[in-house]
């Protein structure tokens, strides 16, 4: 997905909705930070065109297997396909955008 130079992450109305899942294990500083970062990124770059689902593996451990979760926090982009995974506290916005295919890898 090659976007324009000036505003690389603004989506046209035809762009699909982003279905995102954030896997965490309890309310740790890392998971709180990841969620804060994710919310910010979505507001700034996805213009509200995103659904975020938080899964706490301490509550639902059986869900870890389906998405092959190993590290936490892990952000899974379920839609649009293909599935993408970003692990870590999402503190590096550039890399998150690359991971979500919102920016081309340099």
């Amino acid at each position, binding site marked *: 997905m090659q976007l324009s130079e000036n505003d690389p992450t603004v989506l046209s109305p035809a762009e699909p909705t982003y279905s995102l899942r954030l896997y965490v294990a309890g309310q740790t500083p890392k998971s709180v930070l990841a969620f804060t970062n994710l919310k910010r990124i979505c507001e700034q770059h996805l213009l509200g065109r995103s659904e975020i689902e938080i899964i706490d593996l301490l509550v639902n451990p059986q869900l*870890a297997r389906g998405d092959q979760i190993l590290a936490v926090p892990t952000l899974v982009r379920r839609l649009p396909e293909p599935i993408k*995974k970003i692990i870590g506290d999402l503190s590096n916005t550039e890399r998150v955008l690359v991971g979500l295919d919102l920016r081309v890898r340099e």
Partner: protein
Amino acid sequence: MPYSVRPILDEVNGHEKAANGADLSHLPGGRGLPKAPTGIRGLDEITLGGLPQGRPTLVCGGPGSGKTLLALTFLVNGVLLFDEPGVLMTFEENEEEIASDVASLGFDLPELIKAQKLAVDYVRVERSEIEETGEYDLEGLFVRLEHAIRTVGARRVVLDTIESLFAGLKNDAILRSELRRLFRWLKDQGVTALITGERGDGALTRQGLEEYVSDAVILLDHRVHDQVSTRRLRVVKYRGSHHGTNEYPFLINADGISVLPVSSMALQHEAPMERVSSGVAHLDVMLSGQGYYRGSTVLVSGAAGTGKTSLAAHFIDAACRRGERCLCFLFEESPQQLLRNMRSIGIDLAPWVASGLLQFHADRPSRYGLETHLVSMHQVVADFRPAVTVIDPVTNLMTVGTYADVQAMLTRLIDHLKTANITAMLTSLMPGQGEIERTEATITSLMDTWIRLANDHVGDRHRRGLYVLKSRGMAHSNELCEFVLTDHGLNLLDAAAAAHWTPGAVDGGSLTERSRDAVV
């Protein structure tokens, strides 16, 4: 927990002791630490009871060295033999692949999974699919493992091969600290864990896992020497316990893994007074009237065509007539050939085969290395539990090893047979004059009784002779007796005839040597 396992452990040890004949329990300190038996033949003896219970053990080795198989056997035996459910976390192969890998060994993983005795979790990490940003930990892995352990109430955990994570994740520092945490966590869970690792250059594992898993380390090795491959196992480290330190040959076959411990830790065999017939009445007379000692080892040596196999056949026949189980290893003829040939001298062994008293195992000596032969022979002996074992001819094994190797192997084998009170007859083909001394020196010191067969001819008459060169612990004849092979067996001519024997042109054995001290 440690105490409740004891009776099982003792039972297992007792069973293994009987099956293998080897017993390392006289070594001090072996029982100090609670152990989780693997149920793998030989391994529990080397480790004096199994892996350290409630602690992680590292099993490392190159590709194809049998790590996964050993790990899975540990798990499946845990379920089937010791009522300890298990968890397999696999990083390389998925559930179906693993199940089909071990199906040939009779392990039905899907069945165990269905019965909630085993949980398999396939962890797939694909570096290209993952972007890393910022701090993370491997809590997801912990959650999965804990969930699996809880689901089946696991006491045993296998991680195969966790080093794959290093290929999937970029941050080595996080990975290392998390692995350290994982192994400590496993200890806290009280599960007996087995972690496999790929052999690295100059280190036991590629990622130095041995730094983290330091309770016990087992190294597997697969070597090829002279185009013959041998698998070996060594316990590199076992904190808090004695263990066998040698390299032990092991075997992977249709029955799974079995390891061969060195059994000659101490010379402690029983010395029974019971005697068994040689199957030739006259020969029994020569052996102070009663035949061989039970549990002794008899060598029958002679050149080609002197009647070694015939003498062995008599021995087999006599054993089966007594109703004893008899095991026969053939390294030259096929069982069919032997049956046919013996029928021609009036010994019909076929009924014994049919009734299950007699079992043949024919193998080409070059099929695998000496150690492998030894392990497989051990296994057959342990399974069949014979009273009598014949190896015909033992000298053919020498084609696959050096003299020193052969001696070491035979020492182990004979030791094993003696411990199990099995009477053994080994035939030895003496090729030519030059080789005799060397060949015989290799093995004769291990023998209790040594019978030599020789041919000569006087005029146009071909004569066969037999004499007892040594027979420990009995007064035996020093006569050289002539015998004939008839259609009703091997027939010793009477001593009067034997007395007239004059050494003539001898082929195959120097008969004048019999002046040598026969009682050793």
